[in-house]
């Protein structure tokens, strides 16, 4: 299976998350650029301890971006604090994908659990199917750091809860949106949704708006990447064709009055 010298395989059978992440780090420090993980069953924090590889010290090749391919079911907080690396999951992921990630890319060829993209502050996450509760909860952005979460299917309740920045795209492929409390407490960022969403499904702090040219450009870009990552039997043009809505917060400080006296 290995084609290049810098590719390596780790059999995760029976390893704890510490052992597995230790091995990934060792391999990366010794020059591996692509690491295949086999038999992953619930090990958490995959990709987390590679932080300093992107910095100048500690690495044989500073700034190296590792690609990790996961076979099996990775545990919670996949790619937590991920800093510039790429993680691909051939299957479903659990809760907390991309928790507080800073940069890089996570691609899940399946569904993801609750709190996908929680507190993300940069980088991109692509989920082929649906996500669970509280997708993008407390996602944020600052200057040029603008995280992106693209979901092919739909989401369960509280998508974009307390969202403070970033972009969420919900494509609704082969799914109807039944989530409630979308954007509850949201005060920054934007959610694009294709498909029908009733007013009662939205949180009190958001409103719906129609797309402008800038939005269309963003969507074209996101959907383009999505169709590059996944073969969902429908191309970019057809996904983009159809009604999208844009959800924005109506106040920058929805709880301002709660905390002032």
């Amino acid at each position, binding site marked *: 299976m290995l084609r290049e010298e810098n590719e390596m395989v780790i059999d995760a059978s029976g390893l704890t998350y510490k052992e597995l992440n230790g091995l990934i780090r060792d391999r990366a420090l010794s020059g591996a650029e692509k690491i295949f993980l086999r038999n992953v*069953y*619930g090990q958490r924090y995959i990709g987390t301890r590679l932080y300093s590889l992107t910095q100048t010290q500690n690495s044989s090749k500073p700034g190296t971006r590792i690609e990790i391919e996961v076979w099996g079911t990775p545990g919670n907080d996949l790619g937590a604090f991920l800093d510039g690396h790429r993680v691909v999951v051939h299957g479903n992921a659990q809760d907390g994908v991309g928790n507080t990630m800073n940069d890089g890319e996570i691609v899940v060829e399946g569904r993801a*659990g609750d709190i996908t993209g929680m507190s993300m502050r940069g980088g991109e996450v692509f989920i082929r199917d649906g996500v669970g509760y509280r997708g993008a909860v407390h996602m944020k952005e600052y200057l040029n750091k603008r995280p992106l979460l693209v979901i092919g299917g739909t989401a369960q309740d509280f998508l974009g809860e307390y969202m403070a920045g970033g972009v969420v795209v919900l494509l609704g492929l082969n799914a109807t949106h039944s989530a409630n409390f979308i954007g509850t407490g949201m005060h920054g960022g934007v959610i694009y949704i294709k498909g029908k969403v009733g007013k009662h499904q939205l949180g009190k702090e958001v409103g719906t708006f129609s797309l402008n040219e800038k939005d269309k450009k963003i969507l074209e870009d996101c959907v383009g990447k999505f169709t590059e990552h996944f073969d969902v039997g429908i191309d970019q043009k057809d996904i983009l064709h159809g009604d999208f809505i844009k959800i924005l917060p109506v106040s920058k400080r929805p709880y301002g009055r709660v905390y002032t006296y």
Partner: protein
Amino acid sequence: MRRKMYEKEISACSIFGAMNIEGERFTGEGVIKAIANMHLRGNGLGGGFAIYGLYPEYEYYYALHIMFRGNEGAKKETDALLNRSFDVVHDEEMPSGERANVPDPPLVWRYFVAPDKKGKDKLLSDDDYVVQKVMDINLRIENAHVFSSGKNMGVFKGVGYPEDVAEYFQLDSYRGHIWTAHGRFPTNTQGWWGGAHPFCILDWTVAHNGEISSYGTNRRYLEMFGYHCTLNTDSEVIAYAVDLLMRRQNLPMDVVAKIFAPPVWEAIEREEESKKILLAMLRRVYAPLLINGPFAVIIAHHGEMIGLTDRIRLRPLTAGVRGKMTYLSSEEAAIRLVSKKLDRAWTPNGGEPIVVSLDGGGRGEKVDEVIPFA
């Protein structure tokens, strides 16, 4: 002065359930492997299992698993009570492995009994009579606690990680058509043998991940119906609540789910008229049985395994189906470890139960369609 680093425990309880919908019995090997895979979620202060279809040779007798602490007094007193109230057809010490890593195991004994009702007790159903006797033992006999009191099923639990508790009780030698399992991370009360999950009354068992902030209210309400909480753990109330609602009041699970995890008033407002009336009435009549706080539970009784989370799913639950096997788990990876390929894996909506019934038996479908998440 150097500040000591705060060592954060990254934990939560783990729950797992497996059911063969054709009623074929299977060994616990997979279930033990699955719950052990979520080792990280517990902290070694509780583990347990419920097994259905466990004692076919004593199918018609209530199987009482009773734990005794301290000296012989508790057992003597309990034996006397049992001999007065039941025909004890067989009793023995629970087989256990000496070498398992469990702290201070108490004496656990199992009895197979048939009710021997006298006087006005004859007016009670067998089940009600057994509930009364279980409460008697738990309340009145110090250091005796009934783990399990159903027919053809049993609960095995204790302090330790679930895989260690399984080894202690030698669960690899048992077979059942439903297995549920729990790994504990106690939050508000101590970890002790009686406080491990699953909780059981008759053949109802509950394995719970979460915290019940309505415990006081629930407990006082259940006392009016003769249920007494004695095990110092909030989850105990759910077991008695399902016995009250599902066995005694014969309510179906989808109604019980709306009692435990009722929709918010705004959602009730949007329902059609008849459903609105029902949901509003359930909230009013059964307000003291609303389970407040985060929870994911696996409830089981003969022929049925049920998964339910609180209405905003503050605790995780994933379901997986492969052929005649259905699995419920805190984490999908644990299911995949047992069944690499699944026909379907999904996470149920909060407050919407997944009901897994015996094929052809039970009520309704095999598995309730909740959300086709693929």
